[in-house]
C-alpha cells in the first residue's frame, strides 16, 4: 500500500470539511506549486518535512552498461530531497520498533 493523491484528498475531505472537488484541487495544486518552483530554479523548504533542492551536474563520460559502449552524459539538473530533522527522527523511531 502507498499513500496517493486520492487518499490525501479523501483525508482533507474527512478532516477539514472541504468538498471532494476542492480537496482534490488543493492536493493537485500543492504538488504543482512545488514542481513549478523547482522548474523555475528555486529550492523548496517545507519545515518539519524536508527541503527540495536542485543540483547541477557536469557532463561526464558514461557507458552503456549492456554494450559497454562509451556515451557522453550531458550536463543536467536534478532534484534532490533532504528530509528534515523531525521527519528523520520519526522514521528512525518507527524503524526502532521493527525487527531487523
Amino acid at each position: 500500500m502507498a499513500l496517493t493523491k486520492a487518499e490525501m484528498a479523501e483525508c482533507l475531505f474527512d478532516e477539514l470539511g472541504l468538498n471532494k472537488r476542492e480537496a482534490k484541487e488543493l492536493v493537485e495544486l500543492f504538488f504543482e506549486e512545488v514542481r513549478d518552483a523547482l522548474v523555475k530554479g528555486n529550492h523548496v523548504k517545507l519545515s518539519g518535512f524536508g527541503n527540495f533542492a536542485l543540483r547541477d551536474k557536469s557532463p561526464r563520460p558514461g557507458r552503456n552498461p549492456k554494450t559497454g559502449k562509451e556515451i557522453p552524459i550531458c550536463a543536467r539538473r536534478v532534484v534532490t530531497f533532504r528530509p528534515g530533522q523531525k521527519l528523520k527522527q520519526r522514521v528512525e523511531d518507527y524503524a526502532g520498533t521493527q525487527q531487523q
Partner: protein
Amino acid sequence: MPDSAINSLMKSELIEMMARKQSHLAYKDVELAVKSLLEQMSHSLSSGERIEIRGFGSFSLHYRPPRAGRNPKTGDSVELPGKYVPHFKPGKELREKVNEAFLSQGA
C-alpha cells in the same frame, strides 16, 4: 549555480500562492490543508508506507546498515544501529521539466 542565485520557496509562501489561486477558500483552510498534507506524508513514511505521486515522484524508506561510529568528543568507538532514512525519487515529469528548463536557460 552560485548560492546567491538560488531562491527558496518557504512553506508560508507556498500557502500564500495556493490561497491566491483558490480565492474561494479561506486562507486558513489552505494553510490547514497544506499542514494536513505534510502530516499525512510524514505519518505515512514513519509507518513504513511509501508515497506515490504520479508525475511528481515517490518517497520510500532506505535502510542504512549498522556501522561503527565515533563519539566526536571522546573519540570512543560506538556501534551505531541500522536505521531507515526517507528517500525521494523524482518522477519522470518532474525530472524532465526541471532539466528542460535548465537546458533551455543555459542554451
